[in-house]
């Protein structure tokens, strides 16, 4: 219960910071909608199901990357990380709180982005939406973990995509599969296993990421 309260306080802090600064969510929204508009005019009319699904996942992944790149900006710019690391709470609460806040931004961006996608390309099926939801969990868990690693380095803007994109390939495979396959259950199961595996790994090893 105490752990949940710590996570809640940390996530609330990030939401409050975004509410005040408004520099992550508007950028994500603008990026994802602009990407769909560009694809809409650059692709031939009525692209195949597979092509449309592919561009959805490209847009989701890079929109997430935009949010993940900014996840630890307040801590880095204001040097607050030391304060959080010194606190006696379980350090994985820092990762979980940040992941939940990033998830909230990503979901908020998708609430706008998915209807725009459906309007420009093709309607989304139930399994495709479920695939997006499952993928969001994995994206935020892994991305926040890698963001904390990258934030301590000089080439952080470069390092995060380099680390994140290879680890996101299974998410794209599962997400596209859930959207286009005749029996999407296999792909949804694959995404759920990916989420579970990486959530446990990130949760258990975050302590070592924030140690000097």
């Amino acid at each position, binding site marked *: 219960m105490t752990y949940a309260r710590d996570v809640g*306080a940390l996530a609330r802090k990030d939401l409050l910071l975004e509410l005040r*600064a408004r520099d992550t969510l508007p950028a994500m929204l603008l990026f994802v909608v602009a990407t769909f508009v560009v694809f809409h005019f650059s692709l031939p009319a009525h692209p195949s199901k597979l092509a449309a699904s592919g561009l959805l996942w490209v847009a989701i992944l890079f929109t997430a990357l935009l949010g993940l790149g900014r996840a630890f900006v307040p801590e880095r710019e204001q040097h607050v990380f*030391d*304060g959080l690391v010194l606190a*006696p709470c379980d350090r994985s609460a820092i990762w979980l709180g940040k992941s939940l806040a990033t998830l909230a931004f990503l979901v908020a961006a998708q609430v706008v982005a998915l209807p725009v996608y459906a309007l420009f390309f093709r309607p989304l099926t139930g399994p495709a939406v479920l695939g997006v939801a499952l993928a969001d969990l994995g994206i935020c868990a892994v991305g926040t973990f890698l963001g904390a690693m990258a934030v301590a380095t000089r080439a952080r803007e470069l390092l995060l995509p380099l680390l994140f994109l290879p680890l996101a390939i299974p998410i794209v495979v599962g997400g596209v599969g859930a959207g286009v396959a005749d029996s999407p259950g296999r792909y949804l199961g694959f995404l759920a296993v990916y989420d579970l595996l990486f959530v446990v790994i990130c949760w258990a090893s975050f302590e070592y990421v924030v140690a000097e």
Partner: protein
Amino acid sequence: MLTARRLGKRYGEKRVLRRIDLEVPRGGFLVVTGPNGAGKTTLLRICAGLAQPTEGIIERGVSRGQIGFLGHDPLVYRELTALENLELYGRLYRVPECRERIGMLLERFGLWEVRHERVASYSRGMTQRLALCRVLLHGPELLVLDEPYSALDEAGAELLDAQLAELRGERTFLLATHDPAHVEPLASGRLALVA
């Protein structure tokens, strides 16, 4: 309370600390002095548990949650208010009767009237006062203070003097300063680092 033996720290090829021995008993007040680049900040970060020594050993007689650390940065969020920052730290440090404690500290350090204003609107001195509130919030056993008087005006420095004098003997202090004369009456020991 705090013991270090042959402590050393390197960043790559650069050695910033060499064979430091120190012992601060419970209730002790160690003043660390030295020119710029002597390694005061590195030593304090190691003592607070924010950095690991590359040589030697350090033993702290307290857990992480019983350390209060004031570094060069205030460790507060500029887009949050003073109250929101302290409430966050109060939550993470499990401070009992947190609201009352925050109110008392803000009152003492002259920030009560501006508690709902964002830290971004504070002057450097006000931010330093807030940082001191953050450090004292959970009643730490070991206080590691790096240049605590920096940016404080005369009134702020007097407040800090009074606070240090009140806690002297009850808590253990490790304080780095360029102005050792200011804390000389409180000091139980001095460690002079050389560049």
